[in-house]
């Protein structure tokens, strides 16, 4: 499908919509008043009454799953996983399913505009071209979403050729996944930066230190598939799964053993388990494990010595132990030490580069080195530069930093110091509300592109994207805008992007893969290659390209056995976690809002999880409104008495609390990012779980007001059922 077809070519949808909604039963045919409009010219891909399926890539998170979208008469009807895509093998998560609610969302940006007043695309391109011309290259900055996609390549090309600042990629998911820490720890293990790949499916025992890999961690679908392998593989016994975390996540809920350790002691516990295991196995005690004192660990972490010994024995005596660091365990002041300590357990279990063990993720086909998104610290530096006036023009695409960044990194006011902020948002979010111009990009299902798959599969994958429907609104691909503006700006810009349009750029990039061996398909010429690329939903190698040779040096490294430092005052450790159903950009989709959270079954709102015992002591009840106060800010949310959280910990989901972002997201819930201070770990990741907070009761629960839950409080918690017999 190309964009030459105008919207007119498609059935006018309003009429059909009315037809489908108008059901007056028992009164004869209700659709009597419907009008139908024929195609001006029947598109070749369309056949009357038949659905057409397009392979593309899911843009709801940065994982890069392949989708097959069912379209019917120009409308996208349903997304399914692309069964041949090596990353997700035909499966999708809830966010992938709901992507259509973004496409047909009633609150999208419909036209290019300058602070609300619509403008023409020609003028818009002129604005971009002027900005490129007017300012020095090093005064131009690009901030982009986390996905390593074709637009990132295009801007990188532009930056390389013109001396413009290299584009920065950021996403809250990456922040909460602590990708920089993982990458750094992987460097210690493999001698090479990149995302580690944990083969959960092949393991026999999985020890997860805070990794929420069944929710939205790095690449949710392959890890869920891995979990199925852990539990169901035909060739081995049902695998065991132990989770270490202060607050039971949806992942922890599936664990056979859930170890609620004191936040900040993950490294100690990992090292202690290593020490016990090494003792049981005999031989020399690895240096990494030798520094901890077991009794000390037991008292600090709150995990009983017997429990540690039992776990150590498990590690020592079982084949196929896999330890995974992640989530809040890494988002602490000693996050890197945690990662190293946990990876050391893997080294001790000798599973590096073995099935059921740890690999370094394969690089994507047209990639030479791992390129991780910016850490929070790098973002802080970026924002400081913005605030200092170093950037005169800022382009924002695919990210909503005003919402996603912690409160201590004040992106919003820094935007004021940038002369011109141009947003390419498809959706009116908090950042675009502050921007000078919004030049809306197509929705992911309306746009061309490709995306590198960073992790999750053994094969190098370049996932392909193509429009499955023609653009619904007067939007334009950002790549096209940039190419056109670069031509208009001339000079180095025009030279850097010598393309007619986005498609030509893609073709150039993708056809460079033709010469690669072991590809999933071959083609005689670039056009055919490109066509196959669209048809299969990408190109991938058929070989396992994961790095599997690790240096076992990590066992002899000095791993700090300190507890994490906690910022701020207050009686509670604070664990913010990403809502598995909403993540950072799902709040605008009504059906994602209406999906119950896997752990609490809450819909449409934000809650504060408190241990029932603690709540009882504080006189708090379900649905009481409380204020959570950290050193930098405070937010209000309803109390949820959560039976699986440490009494000294409270937790809040991230994903709600938007002040813009459409009718379904606006003024709903609270944003825990507003509590987060600017503390980082050694790798530069935000110590988001390294804070202490206070809570204050604002008001008591009122009947009929409170959290919308799928679960029954009576049936699940026995509330209001009276005393037991």
């Amino acid at each position: 499908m190309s964009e030459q077809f105008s919207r007119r070519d498609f059935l006018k949808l309003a009429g059909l919509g009315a037809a489908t909604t108008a059901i007056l039963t028992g009164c004869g045919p209700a659709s009597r008043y419907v009008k139908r409009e024929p195609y001006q010219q029947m598109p070749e891909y369309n056949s009357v009454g038949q659905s057409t399926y397009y392979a593309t890539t899911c843009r709801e998170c940065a994982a890069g799953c392949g989708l097959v979208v069912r379209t019917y008469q120009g409308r996208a009807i349903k997304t399914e996983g692309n069964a041949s895509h090596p990353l997700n093998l035909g499966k999708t998560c809830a966010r992938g399913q709901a992507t259509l609610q973004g496409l047909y969302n009633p609150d999208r940006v419909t036209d290019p505009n300058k602070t609300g007043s619509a403008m023409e695309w020609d003028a818009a391109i002129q604005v971009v071209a002027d900005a490129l011309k007017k300012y020095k290259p090093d005064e131009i900055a690009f901030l982009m979403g986390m996905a390593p996609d074709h637009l990132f390549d295009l801007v990188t090309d532009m930056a390389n050729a013109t001396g413009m600042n290299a584009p920065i990629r950021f996403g809250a998911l990456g922040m909460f996944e602590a990708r920089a820490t993982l990458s750094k720890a992987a460097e210690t293990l493999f001698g090479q930066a990149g995302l580690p790949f944990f083969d959960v499916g092949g393991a026999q025992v999985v020890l997860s230190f805070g990794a929420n890999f069944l929710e939205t961690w790095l690449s949710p679908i392959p890890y869920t598939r891995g979990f199925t392998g852990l539990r169901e593989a035909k060739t081995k016994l049902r695998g065991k799964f132990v989770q270490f975390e202060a607050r039971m996540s949806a992942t922890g809920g599936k664990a056979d053993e859930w170890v609620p350790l004191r936040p900040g002691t993950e490294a100690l516990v990992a090292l202690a388990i290593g020490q016990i295991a090494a003792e049981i196995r005999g031989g020399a005690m690895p240096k990494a494990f030798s520094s901890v004192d077991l009794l000390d660990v037991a008292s600090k972490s709150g995990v009983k010595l017997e429990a540690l010994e039992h776990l150590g024995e498990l590690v020592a005596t079982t084949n196929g132990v896999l330890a995974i660091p992640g989530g809040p365990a890494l988002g602490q002041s000693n996050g890197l030490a945690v990662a190293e300590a946990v990876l050391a357990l893997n080294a001790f279990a000798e599973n590096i580069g073995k099935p059921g063990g740890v690999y370094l993720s394969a690089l994507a086909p047209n990639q030479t080195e791992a390129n991780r998104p910016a850490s929070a610290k790098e973002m802080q530096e970026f924002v400081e530069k913005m605030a200092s006036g170093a950037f005169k023009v800022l382009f924002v695409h695919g990210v909503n930093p005003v919402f996603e960044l912690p409160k201590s990194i004040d992106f919003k006011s820094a935007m004021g110091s940038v002369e011109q902020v141009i947003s390419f948002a498809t959706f009116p979010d908090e950042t675009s509300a502050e921007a000078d111009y919004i030049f809306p990009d197509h929705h992911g299902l309306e746009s061309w592109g490709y995306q590198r798959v960073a992790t999750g599969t053994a094969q190098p994958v370049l996932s392909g994207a193509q429009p499955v429907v023609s653009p619904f609104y007067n939007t334009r691909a950002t790549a096209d805008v940039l190419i056109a503006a670069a031509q208009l700006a001339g000079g180095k810009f025009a030279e850097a992007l010598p393309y007619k349009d986005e498609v030509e750029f893609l073709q150039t990039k993708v056809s460079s893969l033709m010469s690669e061996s072991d590809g999933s398909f071959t083609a005689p010429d670039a056009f055919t290659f490109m066509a196959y690329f669209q048809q299969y939903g990408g190109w991938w190698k058929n070989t396992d390209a994961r790095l599997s040779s690790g240096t076992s040096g990590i066992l002899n490294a000095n791993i700090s056995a300190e507890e994490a430092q906690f910022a701020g005052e207050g009686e509670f450790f604070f664990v913010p976690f990403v809502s598995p159903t909403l993540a950072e950009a799902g709040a605008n989709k009504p059906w994602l809002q209406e999906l119950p959270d896997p752990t609490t079954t809450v819909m449409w709102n934000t809650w504060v999880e408190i241990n029932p015992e603690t709540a009882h002591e504080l006189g708090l009840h379900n649905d009481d409104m409380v204020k959570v106060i950290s050193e930098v800010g405070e937010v209000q949310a309803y109390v949820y008495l959560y039976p699986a959280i440490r009494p000294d910990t409270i937790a809040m989901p991230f994903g709600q609390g938007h002040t813009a972002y459409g009718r379904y997201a606006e003024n709903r819930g609270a944003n825990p990012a507003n509590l987060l201070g600017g503390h980082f770990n050694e790798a530069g990741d935000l110590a988001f779980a390294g804070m202490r907070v206070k809570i204050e009761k604002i008001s008591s629960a009122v009947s009929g007001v409170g959290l919308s839950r799928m679960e029954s409080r009576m049936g699940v918690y026995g509330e209001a059922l009276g005393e037991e017999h």
Partner: protein
Amino acid sequence: MIRPEEIKMSTEETGKWGMVIDQDICTGCQACVAACAMENNITFVGEEDAGYGRSMHWIRIERFWEGEYPEVKMTPQQPMLCQQCGHATCEPVCPAFATVHSQAEQLNLQVYNRCVGTRYCANNCPYQVRAFNWRDYQRPEPLPNQFNPDVTVRRMGVMEKCTFCIQRIHKAQDKAKSEGREVMDGEFTTACAQACPANAIVFGRVDNPESLVSQLSHKGHGVKHLEELGTLPNVTYFKGG
């Protein structure tokens, strides 16, 4: 015209379509719920109604708690959907024949246009998996563009429930017929099973001993929910663990 003696009652066989759900690997990720909603034009109801038990989910994931902190555990997630009972309690109580047993597909049908909204069926469903259109929930334009043309959009006052994606069944049968063959096992599946990242849901013919679903359901430790009521459910659960 009908000869009842020639019509097989569903008790006499195992049913036709069935499902196996492995609770041990269900992670509760809600992908099935979202997929079901997208496939079947299910409406969202908003915060207040959802919290008041009026959500329209055709499939919901139940989880309970065992024990007290720190020995607390989540029970295995239990996706609960229409069990397509062979001996369904919902069917006989409808005064209008709006929910009847399909002889052809051995499913519990819900005929939306026949429903008068007495809600007796939902009351009588031991699994509580029926959803009623309490209001005329409007989906603002252009959201209706994603409506699946194969599924009726329900309006106020009618009951609805999981259909085992009967539109997919019909489509597959139609396709197979046009190609002069039988529907093959695994040729198609329900929206929930297709989406499930953990592969916890398997759908197929239970009356075909070769099919994956019947092989799984005969594995031995599967249970049928509330089987003691004699409802002959067609969904088998594996608790695992």
